[in-house]
């Protein structure tokens, strides 16, 4: 089985079949990232196609000494953010405490019994909806960790940040997700 780096080299030599293989390898992961960030199938498919077109056009910039996966995932995240930004459908925040500080008072929430909610699948739906409300930076780090099961190094390369900060970012993203959930429950008067 040819490695990704070999396939990229073959693609640069004009072998379209090599790029087809790269598409088949990464189309699901790329689509997963984008679908989780957009929540719409058609929009996610269009952006995924745009991602692969961009990857092909910028393939000569790829450093073959590094892994291809994080590189294409970074392009996917950036392309998705750029596309959502054009449609004003995105919350852009850096990995700072801004989002957390706004909901600091909710940290001592009484969560109630989650088992009952889980049975009706209502909790799953709430969590997924809350994930969609997160800033893109939080969405991407959670998707890379939990959906794609990437390690810290791969996430760091995909996001272009230091590896040591990944755990902190994931923790903040989880906190943010929990606060969005609590806010939803409070708005509905649902005490858990």
């Amino acid at each position: 089985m040819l490695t990704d780096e070999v396939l990229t080299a073959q693609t640069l030599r004009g072998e379209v079949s090599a790029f087809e293989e790269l598409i088949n390898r990464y189309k699901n992961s790329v689509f997963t990232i984008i679908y989780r960030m957009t929540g719409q199938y058609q929009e996610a498919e269009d952006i995924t196609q745009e991602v692969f077109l961009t990857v092909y056009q910028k393939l000569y910039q790829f450093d073959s000494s590094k892994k291809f996966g994080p590189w294409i995932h970074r392009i996917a995240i950036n392309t998705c953010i750029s596309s959502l930004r054009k449609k004003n459908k995105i919350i852009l925040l850096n990995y700072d405490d801004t989002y957390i500080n706004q909901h600091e008072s909710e940290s001592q929430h009484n969560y109630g019994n989650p088992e009952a909610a889980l049975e009706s699948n209502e909790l799953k739906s709430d969590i997924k909806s809350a994930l969609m409300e997160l800033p893109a930076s939080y969405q991407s780090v959670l998707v890379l960790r939990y959906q794609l099961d990437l390690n810290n190094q791969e996430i760091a390369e995909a996001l272009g940040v230091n590896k040591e900060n990944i755990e902190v970012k994931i923790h903040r993203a989880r906190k943010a997700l929990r606060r969005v959930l609590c806010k939803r429950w409070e708005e509905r008067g649902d005490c858990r």
Partner: protein
Amino acid sequence: MNCQDINQVIYDYCDGKISSDLYLEISQHLNECESCYNNYRLTLIENEVLKDTEDIPSLSPAFTQLVISSLISNKCLYSKPAPLVIRKDKSYTFFGAAWFRSLAVVAAVIALCLYIPRWPGTDIKNVANNYDSAKQQETQSSASLNEPIRVGQVDPEVISQPTQQIKSPIYNSDNKIIREPFGEGFASRSSISSSPTSKVIPPPLQDAEVVMFADNTKSNTSVTVVSPQNIPDRFKLLKTDNDGQNKIAYNYTTLDGRDNLDIVVITAKGSTVASDNLEIPPQLDTTSLVRHIEIGNIKITVTFSGTLSTEDLNILADTIQFKAEDTK
């Protein structure tokens, strides 16, 4: 460890990224605190949902081909490098290119032409000798032109050359002169077009200038011949400038070289001469005189100019005559 401490490490506890001592301490707290236990359960459910990919729809099977088609339609595919055998082909090399070979041949010819005069043993003297021998050959060939020429025997190239100097008259099949050497004139302008002298034996050879105009209104073979006659002997012809259409200029100078005479003949057949052709810019220290002359249906406008006085120019204008004939 209180509930706030548990809240800070609950994610690591659920992910198993915690020390065994801390793990036991947190587990003991979760057994005692219902709120923290619910928090722990919610975190586990969150993890389950975050890892869940079952709800993600799959891409269409034709997605890959869709991307490839987009690349092809956008014409942004990376081109395959040429096979090695083609790269070895001389046509792909700089020095083997066809255009370069052609350029090299042209450059070599030009260089050869420039270098031949400097060739050892080919000095200026030798070139001059070559010129003299060439002039002798020209004299010999011009001698053949002194023989009477009849239409049908005339070399078409001779007729087609407007500035060709011919030192003998040219006759048509009816023994009429269609070209006459210098000196064979006409008694009057009215007799120019039907000169009875055209049937006589050719006169002694003199310097003569025969001018031919291509008649654009007729077929390509029609030629109008106009020539000045009765030029005084004190003038000699320096050069003739024919524009190839209807204008010809003769440049004469006196034998002592003091004065010059320019005669510009503009021919118009069947119509008046265009006014723009008549506008001849005056020159310093020169006088000019314009005469309109009709020779049959041919109208010519002659401009006499030169360093001569106006009186001399008028005398010359009255003296010099013109002959014009069409021939096919």
